[in-house]
């Protein structure tokens, strides 16, 4: 049986979180009453003239730079002509042969293996309105009429097209997640899948392993979660392999992912690319980026996930905790950086933040930005654990006290009576008492069964309500037993 290799490319649409639309001053915002953010420009009324939003252009440049793209020296808008009810002008202002950004890459990691996915281009366009199909059961195929809301019409939209470098459903998902994290990091989009501010389409084809030529590609749409993207791609690969294995041929088409049915459905064939009749948008003038502007935008870029990961690894974190911390909310990362500056061991600080602190946030339903923990306080906690002032398990109680506003680490440890007894004299009494109460254990030990020490340590810990330093107890017991 022939083995087939999937070839996948992904198109991502990102709505920018500008205040106003791409070509007019209407407000951008999810959840407004329908048709309240509309004007002659975004309704496509005759005579209305668009003017480009500078912020949107700077943000697409930022996205391109974060994706290691080149920014074109010069870029122009085109009209993409097609008829659809949610497109009031009957064309979409988009870009054709000179996108703002081109030729970049994004590294994605699946199961510890990193793949470099090429970025073909990132171009600027306007979003369409939103249509709701009403009719029998609200199903798209049986709609009786369509309701239109043009609030979204003209919202700045960046389309990012990958090269066909993706080879599995899992990689598709990782690419989408990585890209989403990146635009969220840049702060240029809300990047909320559930609100449609970031959307994914996948182009899937298969080819016999070892063959260079691409197979016929199918575009799949309507995946509204990372999980459905992965499942849709997976389904589509299997469907195509089955078609070809049965001697059939894959048809070039657009298919819709059906979340409930767990399948893709064929959509009506759309007009081919040549039928979009692209031509330069005469109402908008060319954009010339220039080195000065490009460098100005570059200087505003925040630290990106890939750079951060590298910095954490250099700080001594292993790659797993580095990537967990790198994906953690900004507040936690800030606490980490402060704690490291305050002298905390980076590994211990990272463990606290991604472990107990994250669990506390979840348990108390606290949003990360509201975390009441300063980096210096975390450093103090890490310090008293390292110095043996509190045991590792008591330290969790200390943290709880700190997060409940009881004060700094030492203060809480003392107030909650969690400081370990490290004074030999004080412990000796407890050790003697335990030994006196367990003559059998002494005999067992002297008979060569050293394991019994563990039992005795437990007894001392119990006698001291867990406040004894177990290392010291162990040492004292061995001295006395051998003595």
């Amino acid at each position, binding site marked *: 049986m022939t083995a087939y290799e999937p070839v996948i490319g992904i198109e991502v649409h990102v709505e920018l979180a500008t205040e106003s639309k791409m070509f007019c*001053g209407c407000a951008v915002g999810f959840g407004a009453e329908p048709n309240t953010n*509309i004007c002659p420009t975004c309704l496509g009324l005759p005579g209305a003239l668009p003017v480009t*939003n500078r912020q949107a252009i700077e943000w697409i440049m930022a996205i391109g730079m974060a994706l290691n793209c080149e920014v074109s020296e010069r870029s122009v808008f085109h009209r993409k002509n097609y008829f659809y009810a949610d497109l009031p002008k009957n064309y979409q202002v988009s870009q054709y042969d*000179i996108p703002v950004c081109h030729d970049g890459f994004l590294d994605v990691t699946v199961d510890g293996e990193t793949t470099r996915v090429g970025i073909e281009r990132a171009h600027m366009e306007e979003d369409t309105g939103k249509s709701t199909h009403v*009719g029998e059961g609200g199903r798209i*195929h049986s*709609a009786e009429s*369509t309701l*239109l809301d043009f609030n979204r019409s003209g919202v700045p939209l960046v389309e990012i097209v990958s090269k066909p470098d993706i080879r599995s459903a899992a990689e598709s998902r990782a690419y989408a997640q990585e890209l989403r994290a990146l635009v969220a990091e840049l702060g240029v989009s809300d990047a909320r899948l559930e609100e449609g501010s970031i959307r994914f389409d996948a182009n899937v084809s298969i080819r016999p392993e070892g063959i260079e030529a691409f197979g016929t590609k199918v575009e799949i749409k309507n995946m509204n979660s990372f999980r459905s993207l992965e499942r849709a791609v997976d389904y589509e690969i299997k469907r195509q392999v089955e078609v070809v294995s049965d001697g059939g041929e894959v048809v070039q088409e657009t298919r819709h992912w059906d979340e409930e049915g767990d399948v893709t459905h064929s959509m009506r064939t759309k007009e081919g690319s040549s039928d979009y009749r692209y031509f330069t948008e005469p109402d908008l003038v060319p954009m010339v980026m220039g080195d000065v502007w490009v460098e100005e935008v570059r200087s505003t870029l925040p630290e990106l996930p890939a750079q951060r990961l590298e910095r954490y690894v250099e700080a001594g974190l292993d790659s797993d905790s580095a990537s967990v911390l790198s994906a953690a909310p900004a507040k936690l990362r800030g606490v980490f950086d402060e704690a490291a500056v305050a002298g905390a061991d980076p590994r211990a600080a990272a463990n606290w933040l991604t472990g107990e602190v994250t669990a506390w946030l979840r348990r108390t339903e606290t949003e990360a930005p509201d975390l009441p923990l300063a980096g210096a306080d975390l450093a103090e906690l890490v310090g008293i654990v390292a110095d043996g002032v509190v045991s590792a398990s008591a330290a969790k109680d200390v943290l709880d006290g700190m997060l409940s506003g009881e004060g700094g680490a030492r203060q809480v440890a003392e107030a909650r009576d969690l400081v370990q007894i490290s004074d030999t004299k004080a412990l000796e009494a407890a050790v003697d008492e335990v030994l006196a109460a367990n003559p059998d254990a002494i005999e067992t030990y002297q008979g060569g069964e050293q394991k019994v020490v563990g039992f005795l340590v437990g007894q001392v810990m119990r006698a001291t309500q867990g406040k004894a330093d177990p290392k010291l107890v162990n040492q004292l017991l061995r001295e006395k037993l051998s003595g």
Partner: protein
Amino acid sequence: MPIDIDIAHVARLARLDLSDAELEQYRAQLGDILEHAARVQGLEGDPSTESEHPLGFVNVYREDEVRPSLDRDEVLAQAPESMDGYFVVPPALESE
């Protein structure tokens, strides 16, 4: 020589319902226009200026500031059909 075009295809793309006589008439007229365009395209010129704006402007932007939108009721009153703040149009996808 006028350029021969698939006028029925163009009419379909433009959603125009034309009679056979009209199709023939537009086929001839559009063919003449395309022939003219082809002649313009044949002129010597600098291809790098192809995307120039006729007025020579570049970099015209607006700042990202919100300006008032239109009154919804006034806009919807001019639409053939509306409901609950939405425009209503025939189904976007016909079932086939």
